[in-house]
Structures are given as C-alpha cells and as structure tokens.
C-alpha cells in the first residue's frame, strides 16, 4: 500500500466535498481527519475489491461483476448501501445504453454522409459528357412547352 501513495489516493477535493455535504453547517473537519477519511476510502476500495473477487472466484468466474460487489458489501456489513446502489446501477446501465445508441447513430450518419459525395462525384464523372446534351434536350422541351402555352395550354377555358 505504501508503494505508490499517489496512485492509491483519491482526489482530495472530491472527498472534501462529500464530507462537507454530509455534515451540518458550521462543523469543521481537521486536515488530519480529512486525510484519514481519504485514506480510509482507498482502503475501502481495496477491501471491497478483494471481497468481491473472492466471491467471483467462488462462482468460478475470472471477471469481477456487479453482483460480486453487491455480495461483498453485504459481507462487509454495508448491506444498507445495496438498495441505493442497485438504483444507481440501473441509471448507469441506461446511460451506457444511451451512449451506445448515440455512437451507432453517429456511425451511421458518418457512413451516409460519406456515401453522398461519392454519388455526386460519380454523377459528375459519368454525366460530364452527357450533361450538355441532356441540358440541350431540356431546353428544347422548355421551348416546346412555351410554344404550346402560347398556343393552347395557357388559354383560359372560358375563352373557348
């Protein structure tokens, strides 16, 4: 535990904030006791991990899972944490699901936007020669329409 004290410590600012919000206003916590609580939190993580891992090994699993952590907490006499943790876990799973969906959407959007410029370039390439001809045909059609309009199409029915 004394090998890498920096790595094993949790951020003091967060610990301090949690402590402050847990206590009534006006209560002061000494630097020494705040530091001790932070250390206790680190020890808690290691102890919880160890207990959870033992539970996983008992179940003949190599992967530490959520059920192992919950079982460990019961063994450590922190069973009162379990109901709330289950709620947090559901929220976390929903968040992870949402992130996955968003990621898939982004991936699909990227694929479709990647396809569109290719099409345009294909059209440009393939019709480069033919465009002028097509346009020419179109012009003729337009001219024909106008002529028709002048003669027949745009005359009001009543006038007939």
């Amino acid at each position, binding site marked *: 535990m004394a090998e890498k004290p920096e790595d094993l410590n949790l951020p003091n600012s*967060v610990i301090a904030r949690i402590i402050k919000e847990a206590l009534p206003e006006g209560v002061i916590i000494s630097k020494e006791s705040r530091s001790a609580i932070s250390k*206790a939190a680190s020890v808690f993580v*290691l102890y919880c*991990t*160890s207990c959870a891992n033992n539970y996983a090994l008992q179940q003949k699993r190599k*992967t*530490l899972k959520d059920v192992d952590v919950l079982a460990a907490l019961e063994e450590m006499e922190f069973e009162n944490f379990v109901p*709330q943790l289950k709620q*947090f876990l559901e929220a976390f799973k929903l968040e992870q699901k949402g992130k996955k969906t968003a990621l898939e959407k982004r991936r699909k959007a990227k694929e479709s936007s990647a396809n569109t410029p290719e099409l345009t370039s294909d059209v440009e390439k393939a019709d480069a020669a033919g465009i002028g001809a097509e346009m020419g045909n179109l012009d003729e059609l337009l001219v024909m329409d106008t002529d028709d309009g002048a003669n027949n199409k745009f005359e009001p029915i009543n006038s007939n």
Partner: protein
Amino acid sequence: MSMEITDNAKTSKCLGNTGSEHLETEKCERLTRLPIARIRTLVKADDDVSIASQESIFLITKATELFVECLAKNVYKVMQGQKRKTIYKKDLDSIVETLDEYAFLEGALE
C-alpha cells in the same frame, strides 16, 4: 419518482433527503463524483483481479462515495454531544474501534 425518494429515506441509514436529491441531480448530470478511472487503477492494483466489468467498477465507485458520506456522519455523531465544532482524528479512531463495519480500518489510518 416518489417511490425512489421514499425508498432512499427508508433504506439508507446515512443519507436522508440529501441522498434522494443527489440521486435525481446525478441522473441529470454525472453519475459519479469520484473519478471512475482512479477507482479502476485501485482495483487493478489487486493482482488477484484479472478482469473487472464496467458495472463493477461503477458500483465500487458509488459505494466508496456512500462510504465516505456514512463515515463522516458517524464520526460527527461521536463529537456531537461535546461542545466543540471541529472533528479530529481521534474521533475517527474512536469509531474504528467501536463500530464493527469499520474494523477493517484498524491500523490502516496511522
């Protein structure tokens, strides 16, 4: 929603109303206060652990937050009767000796 608040109030020894508020705010913002990455580093420090799922790391993170909150409140209870307003290390040592759930901390806080 109201059921959650009631459950929180009933089931949690340590987190009265603040717990439910935190649950709702955290759902809208971040789910954890402690950095999950740092907890993962601690978990991986245990050589016996090969793989840990995302959910397990998350749970340990949240459990640690609850632990800190609970510990602070329990320490406060010790000095509550006395006239001082400052919590000292001796108060922490006192609950490590008296409360069973904190027995694992014996000798670790020196």
